[in-house]
């Protein structure tokens, strides 16, 4: 018996008839050959989130982003004119990686007037122009104007910086994101500068890993233990249903109902003692941050009571906006067909006092506890899939975003191969 109304077609999945309802193949997550296609078809063609504008507020502020799946590193820098630009992090003299400290693969950030190569000392301005070649007279007809850094398409949305590694993107960032995601514009991401940042390498395909962040069907089982025993038993018995799902092209959103999250309304014996004394927990601080009027787009479907909305940006980024007035991001960077780097950031308004800081600390610690549960489980999933004991796996209606995600990846790869055939 459904706790929330389903679309007229009978299910969220059938509401999007292109998805079908058949069991799906996970060959896309265990095939090294398919991963080689994804590098080109997806990561060198889609808009990829790389950071926030607040990371580089002033002229000369920069950071680098390692995009191993596209075998490159990008420099993102704010120029003299205040514009944010992106360049491949490769010196144009003989290809040395330009900006790094100690470890060439490690990401760095800082402030500079010029980027200077550690190998032969060539220098580049904040606009990417080559401004100095060591012993220029030794070269043959060298025109420095021909040797600026290779630029990368870079656009921002709601303060999130995206790059596109294709020569000419087929869509602007805003057209690519589409109306559903554009609907969160106006949320005060720019004011929420208390950031708790986490990273880990996990032994799972990037899609297998992302899948767990697109459905909450697993939550009562994998995460139920984070509740006190009576609630844990109840959520396990009830299972999980989302009040609302929506797809917009390859992107998706799922919302949750607020009732489970309103921990402070529960009898005290149902609540973790540490949550009571810190006024915070798994779903964030109990004392809701006042963010002013928020865009309607953060609660698509008008979910009420509302818990959170999880916006999945194709291919590898997600923003989760929580009712208690904070948000977190997930990002999934493949490093091989069966490994990825997972990044999570928990973001709030700056704490005004120790009480608020303690509440944020509790939320950030809980975030780590449940992320560890996900990460470890997904290594187990990868191992199970790689055993190749079956060809098809059933997906239910609460896994509609998973179904759309894998189908979208398949569509992008097919389209890339068709274009390549046409030459």
């Amino acid at each position, binding site marked *: 018996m459904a706790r929330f109304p389903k679309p007229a077609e009978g299910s969220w999945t059938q509401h999007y008839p292109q998805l079908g309802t058949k069991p799906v193949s996970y060959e896309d997550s265990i095939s090294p050959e398919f991963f080689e296609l994804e590098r080109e078809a997806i990561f060198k063609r889609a808009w990829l989130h790389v950071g926030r504008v607040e990371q580089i507020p002033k002229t000369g502020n920069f950071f680098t982003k390692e995009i191993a799946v596209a075998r490159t590193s990008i420099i993102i820098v704010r120029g003299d004119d205040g514009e944010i630009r992106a360049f491949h992090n490769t010196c144009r003299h003989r290809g040395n990686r330009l900006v790094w400290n100690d470890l060439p693969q490690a990401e760095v950030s800082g402030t500079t007037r010029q980027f200077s190569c550690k190998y032969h000392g060539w220098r580049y301005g904040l606009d990417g122009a080559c401004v100095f070649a060591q012993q220029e007279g030794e070269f043959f007809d060298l025109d420095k104007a021909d040797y600026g850094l290779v630029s990368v398409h870079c656009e921002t949305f709601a303060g999130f910086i995206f790059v596109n590694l294709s020569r000419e993107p087929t869509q602007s960032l805003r057209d690519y994101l589409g109306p559903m995601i554009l609907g969160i514009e106006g949320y005060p991401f720019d004011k929420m500068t*208390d*950031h*708790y*940042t*986490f*990273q*880990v390498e*996990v*032994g799972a395909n990037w899609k297998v890993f992302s899948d767990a962040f697109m459905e909450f069907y697993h939550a009562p089982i994998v995460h139920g*233990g*984070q509740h006190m025993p009576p609630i844990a038993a109840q959520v396990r018995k009830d299972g999980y249903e989302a009040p609302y799902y929506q797809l917009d092209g390859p992107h998706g959103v799922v919302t949750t109902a607020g009732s489970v999250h309103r921990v402070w309304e529960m009898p005290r014996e149902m609540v*973790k*003692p*540490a949550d009571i*004394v*810190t006024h915070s927990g798994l779903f964030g601080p109990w004392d809701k941050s006042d963010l002013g009027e928020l865009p309607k787009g953060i609660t698509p479907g008008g979910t009420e009571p509302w818990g959170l909305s999880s916006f999945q940006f194709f291919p590898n980024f997600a923003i989760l906006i929580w009712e208690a007035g904070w948000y977190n991001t997930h990002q999934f960077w493949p490093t091989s067909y069966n490994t990825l780097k*997972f990044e*999570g950031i928990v973001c709030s308004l*700056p*704490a*005004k*006092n*120790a*009480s608020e*800081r*303690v509440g*944020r*600390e*509790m939320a*950030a*610690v*809980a975030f*780590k*506890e449940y*992320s*560890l*549960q996900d*990460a*470890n*489980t997904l*290594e187990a999933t990868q191992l199970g899939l790689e055993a190749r004991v079956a060809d098809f796996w059933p997906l239910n209606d609460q896994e509609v975003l998973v179904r759309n995600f894998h189908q979208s990846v398949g569509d992008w790869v097919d389209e890339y191969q068709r274009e390549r055939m046409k030459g």
Partner: protein
Amino acid sequence: MSATVTLPAAFSFLQPYAQRWSLETERARWGARMSSSMEDLQAYYDAIFPHVEEAIAYCDKFPLDAMPEDAVNLLRMIYSFIIVSFPVELWHQPGVPDTAATDFVRISEPLP
């Protein structure tokens, strides 16, 4: 021998735990949790739990960017209480069950 960690006089009863639990970063606190026995975690939890709200109220008397050193030390003890509350209240072991193959490293955080 590292310097003694001072706590506000009203919280001097936590002094036996200060050296181990008044730690600046989550990475250090996570390390302390994972290298402790359940008896150690329970003992720290039992010592601080009845006084957590009081300790938060004490720290609230100062602006976050101008806290005296002893109050910062106390705030870090509250953070450690949070990180040990999960093993004590839920897991009954220092680590999160079924997560031995992974970590999730906090690489930056607001301070203090």
